[in-house]
């Protein structure tokens, strides 16, 4: 596959890993955070930790939109699904996320009409072909995905489709990065920046990291070669005592971002004053809601959702793992009460959550097969 296979070429990968080994300062321990859950997944999936020197530690960041979605919001979405006239649509990633009374898949088994879609446009099409029902789209994702939701809402308005709404849970990445950087006791040397978010935002929004915290950020693609080269670029900056933003993913990321996408976001969405992030608490100006102009397509305005705040079980240490303070295996529930089949925290539900990735892809003692699995 073009523009994929070249970035999985073993020869080129070996070139970069050799160069990383030559470039690291042997006496130094590097802590590099990959912000984005997609990077976490790719790192585990391609076994990249095995090819890095021992003194480079990869810390998993909070860029997993499923992982940071509070249980109460899942409950809200499912309450919409329980209405007889509603078809709730969502991405595959959401189907196994547990609310207080079960996952979307379990609600579906109990009779709720919940359908998986690949694109919000498919949800809109479903509304057009089911005029007697209401189709609600459970929107999640960072800036990568929000513009697609925006265009879908604009299209619904243009076509005059009234039986369609969006339950909006889009969040933005920069506030989460600030929350990480401001965490007491947080020690990070650099960031692998969110490559697909950056196709929309461009690279400028991450300049604050270099300017205010003196740490390098390298915006990276998702293939093994992309991630490894980004790590090399971070190591080189650190060696030279530099801190700036670089773009490893220049083949798809424009430095100044995608103007059309940013304009669509501005037209359709406003920033919520604050929003709760699971594990990170309330963060101001970190999530999107539909502007009043688009009220007819705003599920929160059309339906009275419970809006109940549900706290995580005390024993679940999702917050610390999300912030990179703890490794997944260090959480007391990891692998025992909390595993991909019965996830307690959202980090175990999403395939790009740090805990799920670690559980499924990292080698672990075979005896650690949980009781009752």
């Amino acid at each position, binding site marked *: *596959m073009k523009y*994929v296979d070249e970035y999985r070429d*073993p020869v080129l*990968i*070996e070139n970069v*890993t050799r160069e990383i080994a030559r470039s690291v300062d042997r006496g130094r321990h590097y802590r590099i955070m990959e912000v984005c*859950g*997609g990077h976490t997944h790719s790192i*585990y*999936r*391609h*076994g*990249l930790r*095995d*090819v890095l020197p021992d003194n480079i530690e990869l810390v998993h960041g909070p860029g*997993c*939109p*499923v992982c940071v979605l509070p249980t109460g919001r899942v409950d809200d979405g499912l309450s919409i699904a329980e209405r007889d006239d509603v078809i709730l649509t969502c*991405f*595959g*990633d959401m*189907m*196994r996320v547990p609310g207080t009374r079960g996952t979307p*898949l*379990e609600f579906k*088994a*109990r009779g709720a009409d919940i*359908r*998986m*879609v*690949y*694109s919000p446009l*498919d949800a809109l099409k479903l509304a057009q072909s089911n005029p007697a029902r209401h189709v609600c789209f459970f929107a999640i*994702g960072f800036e990568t*995905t929000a513009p697609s939701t925006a265009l879908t809402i604009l299209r619904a308005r243009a076509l005059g489709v009234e039986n369609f709404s969006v339950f909006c849970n889009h969040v933005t990445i920069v506030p989460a990065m600030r929350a990480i950087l401001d965490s007491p006791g947080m020690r990070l040397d650099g960031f692998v920046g969110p490559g697909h978010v950056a196709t929309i935002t461009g690279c400028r929004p991450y300049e604050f990291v270099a300017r205010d915290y003196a740490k390098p950020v390298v915006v990276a693609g998702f293939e*093994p070669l992309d991630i490894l080269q980004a790590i090399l670029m971070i190591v080189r900056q650190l060696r030279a005592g530099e801190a700036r933003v670089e773009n490893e993913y220049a083949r798809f990321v424009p430095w100044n971002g995608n103007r059309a996408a940013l304009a669509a976001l501005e037209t359709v969405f406003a920033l919520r004053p604050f929003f709760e992030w699971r594990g990170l608490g309330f963060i101001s100006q970190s999530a999107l809601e539909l502007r009043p102009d688009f009220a007819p397509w705003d599920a929160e305005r059309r339906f009275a959702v419970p809006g109940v705040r549900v706290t995580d079980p005390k024993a679940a240490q999702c917050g610390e793992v999300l912030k990179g303070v703890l490794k997944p295996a260090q959480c007391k529930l990891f692998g025992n009460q909390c595993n*991909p*089949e019965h996830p307690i925290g959202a980090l175990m539900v*999403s*395939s*790009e959550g740090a805990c799920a990735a670690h*559980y*499924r*892809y*990292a*080698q*672990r003692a*075979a005896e650690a*097969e949980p*009781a*009752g*699995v």
Partner: protein
Amino acid sequence: MALAERKRPRVAFSDERIEMAHGAGGKASRRLVEGLIAPAFANPVLDTLSDAATFSLGGVRIATTADGYVVRPLRFPGGSIGELAVNGTVNDLAVSGACARALMATFVLEAGLESATLRAEVAAMAAAAERAGVAIVGGDTKVVEHGLCDGMYITTFGIGEIDVRFALDPRSVRPGDRVLLSGPIGSHGITILLARGELDLEADVRSDTRSVWPFVDTLGAACGSGVRWMRDPTRGGVATALNELVRESDVAIVLDESAVPLGTQVRGACELLGLDPLHIANEGQFLAIVAAADAPCALAALRAVPGGEGAADIGEVRAEPARMVVGATAYGGTRAIDMLVGDPLPRIC
């Protein structure tokens, strides 16, 4: 296989309701069978929990199997529910080292089903049975109300004669053995996913449904005694089948990921949807663990069978890490390959 030697850990089943995941062929399915169903019927033959039950009847070694087919849509590129039923049953017997002799089929039909559909299905089954060299000797038919059973469900019972060239036992699998795969994976599962039409993808992918007996027969002739274990990787894919093996035999399997045969379009669909081909169902492939010395000749023999050109040696058995399946990349990266939890779901993240 004496019960006392089996150290299967006690499995608890405590789910309140049956969910779709319990039928997906992965961990949840295992828990349902091992935790709820099998303990109720416990007996030495059942407790081996292999694809086919093997026992002796008047001195003849017999294998029997039963299966259910609930696929939607009923017809799809490359096959239909009836063909799956015939081939799937024949294959369960084949990978247990038995040549299928006879099948029985039960139809549960939805009131309102077009007779033309049933006629086409029955014709497809007859054709598949003839290709597979097996006779359909009986069965039953029931009709249920409109709205139930998705048009048609088929359950089968198959019986076959154990082929004495094989001495299959998962506990005979040992470090050094090779893992052979009959051909490209993922075709069936992706075909079904696309045929449902929810994802709006066009691709020229077809189900790989076929009898694997010709391959098993060839293996028997080439090196029967060197074959330790066989399995058809249906629901849950290659990953689930191999994970089941390593748990039974306390070994490790290390796969060379670049050696796993994969069709271009199946790969494209998996990359687009974020699916792992190793978790996708196959209906015309099989895995065989073969002694290292016999592997090259076994592979050559498989490749010489029409339809076997894509057969490959995809990895090896090792002692460590015990009870795990691991994938290795060409540049030295490794990852654990886990069993499927529920149905494979496309993702956007």
